[in-house]
């Protein structure tokens, strides 16, 4: 690919009508194993993908026009690139906006380069394939121990990505990242009842996958589901733990509204409700939240060394003791709001509380614990949510002894900003893909809509 990149750079630099350019190159290699029920192998997929996106910039006095486009790898010739630039210069005129400058190389410490987000095994795809086979065998071996548990599906998806950002001001950044995604579905059977549980794992390093522990944990969950009942509609104390907690603060499909409103883009669109140094939640009765974006956690998939503009990522305090502190900002919006750009958003770190996890569970009244949602997809702007509960526990305090009864179904429903008015955070912490914070979080007045 470097031949094509050099040609692109040369052609873009030679075009006198341009006031700047940027190239984003992303290459990826996949090595995936897909299994059906009872470990029947369905497919082994290997792939190599390359994407090149070019953005050109044209200045018009106090305005700038930008246009992003991509080209097929096989059509990158000097003539074709020049033709494309001519077309896209017209687009720049249509896309005129308030002027902003392109970033230049930052004079920063090299610390960001020390963050590990790549497993060197990915240098050799044969070794990756071998590692996948080893994990496959380990799952087989470990599931054998449980006579009432059956495998319904197993996928090992691995990807090595290489990202390069180049621009006309001399930005030249490169990042390698590895990603292993394990998806496993197991069923527990007892008498005529059966229930399934799907669990996923996303890590950087093969060595971070502990199959015996993962299987043990999830076999316990699926066995609990065999006895699970449907919940009734209640307003109770609700404790989030495990995957549910990660999903709450760092949902899969969109930003948590707490984070979304700290976006400089949303502020510039006149849609952020946050004001600097003002409370993000009114009438707080419980713990006050402190939330940080940390793009430099070692061995964490949410870590990013730089963003698509070539801005080196920074650790940012978004919220401190319930007061809004700083926006996360891409280059353009940072200039518009006269703040510093922050690079890519990282893992969401929530400052732990003062009481122990054990105390979180100690309540006079019955309370509910949710460990897994079917999907947690809040309205990123209003904060409203309703999420089906995949596995939870009703916890009763019997003279200091806690009795846990599993349940599934029903919906955890409400508004994130209202819910956080009265929250208790544990002092013990957990760390997972995209989340680093309290191990248990208790909402002291929350609603579960029953069936």
């Amino acid at each position, binding site marked *: 690919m470097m031949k094509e990149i050099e040609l692109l750079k040369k052609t873009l630099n030679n075009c006198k009508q341009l006031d700047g350019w940027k190239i984003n190159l992303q290459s990826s290699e996949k090595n995936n194993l897909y299994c059906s029920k009872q470990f029947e192998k369905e497919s082994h997929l290997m*792939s190599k993908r390359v994407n090149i996106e070019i953005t050109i910039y044209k200045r018009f006095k106090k305005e700038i026009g930008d246009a992003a486009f991509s080209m097929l790898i096989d059509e990158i010739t000097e003539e074709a690139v020049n033709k494309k630039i001519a077309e896209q210069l017209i687009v720049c005129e249509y896309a005129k906006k308030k002027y902003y400058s392109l970033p230049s190389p930052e004079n920063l410490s090299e610390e960001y380069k020390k963050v590990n987000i790549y497993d060197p095994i990915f240098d050799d795809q044969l070794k990756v394939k071998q590692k996948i086979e080893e994990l496959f065998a380990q799952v087989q071996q470990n599931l054998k121990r449980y006579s009432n548990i059956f495998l319904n599906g197993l996928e090992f998806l691995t990807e090595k990505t290489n990202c390069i950002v180049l621009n006309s001001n001399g930005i030249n950044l490169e990042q390698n990242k590895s990603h292993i995604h394990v998806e496993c579905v197991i*069923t527990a059977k007892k008498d005529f009842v059966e229930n399934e549980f799907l669990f996923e794992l996303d890590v950087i390093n093969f060595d971070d996958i502990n199959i015996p522990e993962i299987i043990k944990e999830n076999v316990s969950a699926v066995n609990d589901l065999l006895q699970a009942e449907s919940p009734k509609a209640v307003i109770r104390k609700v404790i989030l733990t495990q995957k549910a907690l990660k999903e709450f603060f760092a949902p899969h499909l969109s930003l948590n509204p707490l984070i979304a409103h700290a976006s400089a883009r949303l502020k510039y*669109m*006149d849609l952020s*409700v946050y004001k600097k140094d003002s409370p993000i939640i009114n009438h707080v009765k419980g713990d006050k939240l402190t939330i940080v974006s940390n793009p430099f956690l070692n061995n964490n998939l949410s870590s990013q060394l730089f963003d698509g503009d070539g801005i080196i990522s920074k650790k940012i305090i978004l919220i401190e003791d319930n007061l809004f502190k700083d926006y996360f900002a891409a280059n353009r919006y940072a200039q518009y709001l006269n703040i510093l750009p922050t690079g890519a958003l990282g893992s969401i770190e929530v400052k732990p509380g003062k009481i122990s996890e054990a105390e979180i569970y100690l309540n006079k009244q019955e309370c509910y614990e949710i460990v897994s949602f079917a999907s947690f*997809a809040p309205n990123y702007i*209003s904060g409203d949510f309703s999420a*089906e509960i995949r596995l939870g526990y009703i916890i009763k305090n019997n003279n200091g002894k806690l009795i846990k009864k599993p349940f599934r179904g029903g*919906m955890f429903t409400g*508004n994130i900003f209202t819910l956080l008015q009265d929250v208790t955070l544990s002092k013990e912490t957990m760390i997972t893909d995209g989340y680093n914070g309290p191990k248990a979080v208790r909402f002291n007045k929350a609603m579960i809509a029953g069936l």
Partner: protein
Amino acid sequence: MQKNKIDEIKQFFAEITALLEQKAVYADCLYYYDSSQEIGLDKANKEISSGKGDGVKLRAYDGAQFHEYGITGFNKEKIIEAANILLQSFDKKDAGLIFPLAIDTQKINKHFESESEIAADSIDLSQKIEDTENIMNAILKKEPAIANCRIRYDESTEIRIFVNKYKQLSQRIQSCIFIISPYIKSDHGDIRYHYKAFFANGYEAKQKISKKEIIDIISFTKKIAKADKIIPGRYLCLFSPDVTGLLAHESFGHGMESDTIYKGRAKAQEYLGKSIAPDYINILDNPSFPKRNGSFFFDDEGFITSSTYLIKEGIVNHPITDSFSASRLKMLRSGNARAESYDHKVYARMSNTYFAAGKSNKVDMLKNIKDGFFLHYPSGGMEDPKGWGIQVQGIVAEKIKDGRLTGELFYEIGMTGYLPELLGNIQEVSQEFEVPGTGICGKGHKEWVRVSEGGPYLLVKDVNLS
């Protein structure tokens, strides 16, 4: 893409499949080409971009499993190299160890094109930008209470060329979608938004955004600003076609994907051939439905598409299938094998999923509701094929009193329940019928493909809302 280029690719792929079948029981090749033009506007932003990408996927079936290789571009040398890597990755199986694959052996060499009234490439980009700006300005200037309005125009062209021993197929599908999202500060102090999308295969999508539509969008957004949260409970409800469609897709459709059934992950398997709903209930998946977001002519395994009744007259009928799971389940193939791209695996996936129209009249159905809700504009849902639990979220509900819509809205509502119970609670099905969906669907949280969903208005009792 010119016909001679398509023919050249077909001819080359025929040679590659023959090469792979020297060792494989079966092989196929699929070329993917996707291009797009996007315009994104709001009062603070104007973003214009275009994209283009292509790649090839080779598959070899060794009699037990597939071996696949995906690669960017169409470069003959690299494709031959990939074919040789594949050939080295498996051993030839003895005849006795071969599990036959469900492959259609009818020979077809054909090209398909989606039809549009106004070809998107016949309209200048400047015109498209102007149209998009006019929609935004019409909303923002008309209603100062609307804090911002995001308009997105997405135009795409998708080309697929499939070749195996029996098929040489190509298709070109174009689509245009306008998405309108006005944002408003609510009476409760939070920011809320409304969302409406307009789809067509060509630029006629723009013609669907009439002045009345704009006025309706503004009026609805203002009502959302005043909306409350609903008191959780069970209610008599009238479902709009978009809620009907999401129910068909999320709650039932995912459980009728043959790979899910083969894995023992779908409760529907126990119900095949059995009654699950009143006899006036029919649910279909139909990739050959013309001019919809989930339409295509052949699937990613070269199977020509047609409709499949998932539920026929209340009885669980037939799953949608891919070749691997269909052959093991000894089921008929349907044209539903789809992959997100050339570096993704094929799964059995939905396309256009909907309830069939019934006999009732929407106005009469509304009149029959003394106290209830009209449900529309859901934002999404999640499948639960094993438990048949329902999760639909982001619904806007409008209060119905004495057979009339009151204009009183309730925002961000979740619907939950148990699917057979909800299907059994459907009392009436309207003649009025729409398949408006413009979304994408994932398998869990990955493998995204474009789909649509819809159907008639449904009158449903005891709907669990929160």
